[in-house]
């Protein structure tokens, strides 16, 4: 009974984190982007520096009219946001932030999380196709081709750290992690983070939702709460990617002044800042540049890293 209660508590904590952390990242993005562009961002909602802006947005979205175009495939159209959002929640359940601090530790944690994260793209494809809108279909096709290109370096980079630690469990990986891995696994870490950004459609990899070309890609026809769910999925994805990179490549809760889950969050927070920073700094990549970067840079680097990791592990 206590086991059951504990599992339920853990699940609820992850759920609350899943709903609040993306808002934190979103608010951070509002403010950081604003200051990088020499403006102040939202200042009104909630009083202090517009801290409640995203809550206000949520209340607004929940009351908005939901429009399903006549041409759309109603059922698929309605299901797509759930399928885009939920994989991130399910993946988050398996990621530990401290020793024993996880929704549920899984033996094959890395494998599970990578597999589940890949499901989200089906939601986007469903959204794009079911909308029966040319821009949506274009966006969905771009999204899928982008995922196909970047899933490989993403997975190969993760394999490198698995080889180094000799385990698929997140806790084992963090326990095995040594500070010098920062250098040894640096190429894999960078490849992982960049490929992750591309999977999330974050700028500069935001071709699938390029607003100047195809309105908002697969999400063009969405309104109200369903649209909000897609947005939540994007920010939940950022949280997930930053936590993953922090746990896999930056040593998670290992830190100079004692191990703590605060370190995991501090590292993930810095990464989230970098994600926003990249959005402000870089122009959007073209489709051919995207493919070139994935197939001719990231994948060869990831393969070379695999070789390096294997040799070092055996020689050590």
């Amino acid at each position, binding site marked *: 009974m206590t086991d059951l209660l504990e599992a339920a508590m853990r699940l609820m904590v992850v759920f609350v984190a899943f709903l609040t952390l993306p808002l934190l990242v979103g608010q951070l993005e509002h403010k950081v982007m604003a200051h990088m562009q020499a403006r102040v961002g939202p200042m009104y909602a909630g009083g202090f520096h517009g801290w409640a802006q995203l809550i206000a947005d949520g209340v607004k979205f929940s009351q908005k009219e939901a429009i399903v175009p006549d041409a759309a495939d109603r059922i698929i159209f309605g299901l797509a946001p759930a399928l885009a959002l939920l994989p991130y929640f399910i993946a988050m359940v398996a990621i530990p932030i401290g020793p024993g601090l996880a929704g549920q530790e*899984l033996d094959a944690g890395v494998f599970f999380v990578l597999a589940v994260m890949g499901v989200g793209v089906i939601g986007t494809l469903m959204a794009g196709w079911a909308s*029966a809108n040319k821009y949506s279909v274009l966006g969905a096709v771009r999204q899928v081709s982008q995922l196909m290109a970047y899933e490989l370096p993403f997975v190969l980079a993760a*394999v490198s750290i698995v080889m180094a630690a000799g385990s698929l469990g997140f806790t084992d990986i963090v326990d095995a992690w040594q500070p010098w891995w920062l250098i040894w696994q640096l190429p894999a870490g960078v490849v992982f983070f960049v490929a992750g950004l591309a999977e999330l459609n974050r700028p500069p990899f935001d071709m699938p939702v390029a607003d100047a070309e195809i309105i908002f890609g697969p999400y063009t026809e969405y309104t109200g709460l369903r649209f909000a769910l897609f947005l939540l999925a994007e920010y939940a994805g950022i949280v997930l990617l930053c936590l993953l990179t922090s746990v896999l490549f930056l040593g998670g809760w290992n830190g100079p002044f004692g191990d703590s889950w605060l370190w995991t969050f501090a590292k993930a927070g810095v990464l989230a800042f970098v994600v926003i920073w990249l959005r402000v700094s870089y122009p959007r990549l073209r489709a051919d540049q995207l493919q070139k970067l994935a197939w001719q840079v990231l994948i060869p680097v990831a393969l070379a890293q695999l070789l390096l990791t294997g040799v070092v592990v055996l020689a050590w």
Partner: protein
Amino acid sequence: MDDGYMGGYAVVAAAVALGVVFVATGLLANRLLRPVVASAEKYTTYECGLDPVGDGWAQTHIRYYVFAYLYVIFAVDAVYLFPWATVFDADGYGVVTLVEMVIFIGFLATGIGYAWRRGVLRWV
């Protein structure tokens, strides 16, 4: 909840259920809160305010299939890599195991190199 290997996945199943309930509740609440002000124009396909031309679903030539093939090949390879990565350093494995995987990936890498040289790794 740690009843053996599969025990942990009960929580994952619970997470799936919780997620479904969350989205369903949200959409139900939205249904109760939102206005419905129907008008024919609202339900047309959005094409920047102009009347939509033709259908959103059309046949097109997917030239991306070469990438898709390459992806499938490497994705299957990656699935093999994971179990291998956890044991290649263990007793009874070692250098030979690593060399075997290098040869295997070498074949695939040669495939990418070939595709690259042939110029099919281009977006058209």
